């Protein structure tokens, strides 16, 4: 089963488009994660936006180069680290004598500051970290099923020409 119609890899137009769009996508996604407690957005949404970088890399440079830039094994380990970080932040409430997931030190700073809302901010960061690594790994996994054969075929065609 192969999906060859439509997009041509290594086309100059696709490559330039991905190159020019990728920094904006990553910057905007990271902004949405960082300002989750102040403005609309949050960990899930920003994480998925950052994870689209994997897809853009695949469209422009093919699967092998994308996995060189973003190692799937590293992404997989980092996702587990993000999940553990969320649990530890939830356990902070127990360590300080309250319930699980209790917001314990929320009185620092003024309303509207980034670090003003206690554990809410850091929980948002951990969820964003987890989602961006997890969805990036999932995208690379799914592309790995379809892509490598196509790559080899194209290389053979180029060699014949």
């Amino acid at each position, binding site marked *: 089963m192969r999906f060859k119609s439509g997009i041509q890899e290594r086309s100059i137009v696709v490559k330039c488009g991905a190159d020019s769009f990728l920094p904006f996508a990553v910057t905007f996604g990271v902004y949405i994660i960082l300002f989750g407690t102040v403005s609309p957005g949050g960990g899930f949404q920003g994480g998925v936006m950052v994870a689209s970088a994997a897809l853009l890399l695949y469209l422009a440079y093919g699967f092998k180069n994308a996995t060189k830039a973003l190692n799937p094994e590293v992404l997989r380990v980092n996702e587990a680290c993000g999940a553990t970080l969320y649990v530890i932040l939830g356990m902070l409430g127990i360590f300080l004598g309250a319930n*699980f997931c209790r917001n314990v030190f929320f009185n620092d700073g003024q309303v509207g500051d980034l670090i003003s809302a206690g554990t809410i901010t850091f929980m948002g960061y951990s969820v964003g970290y987890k989602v961006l690594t*997890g969805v990036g790994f*999932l995208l690379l996994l799914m592309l790995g099923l379809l892509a490598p054969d196509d790559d080899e075929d194209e290389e053979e065609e180029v060699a014949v020409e």
Partner: protein
Amino acid sequence: MKARKAITIISLVVILAFGLAAVVNAYLNIPIAYDGSDVNVVDLYNDPESYDVSNPDGVADIIVKENLSKTMAANNVAAVVFDFRGYDTLGESFILLTAIAGAFVIVSRGHKKAKKEEEKQ
């Protein structure tokens, strides 16, 4: 077979009767939290700011009035997702973890099978 059919019909009738009784009981006994009978929908559509939000009830009251003193988060949605409903977000993120682990297991087994078949050929 006839006995089976009779049992099926009887059980269906019993379930239907209990369900109807539960619905009627719930309708009669549950207190109505918000009754929108006084609101004119056309007027509300033309002028949304005329809606009375001074007396929200239940959880909405706590979230609207005491959000800043309870969480200091300027974004109410973030306060609900990560503070009031922290358990729920934990479950959501672990659903993602489980889904990715399952996909990884299935895909890696498929890769191994494909490699074995190639070696045989």
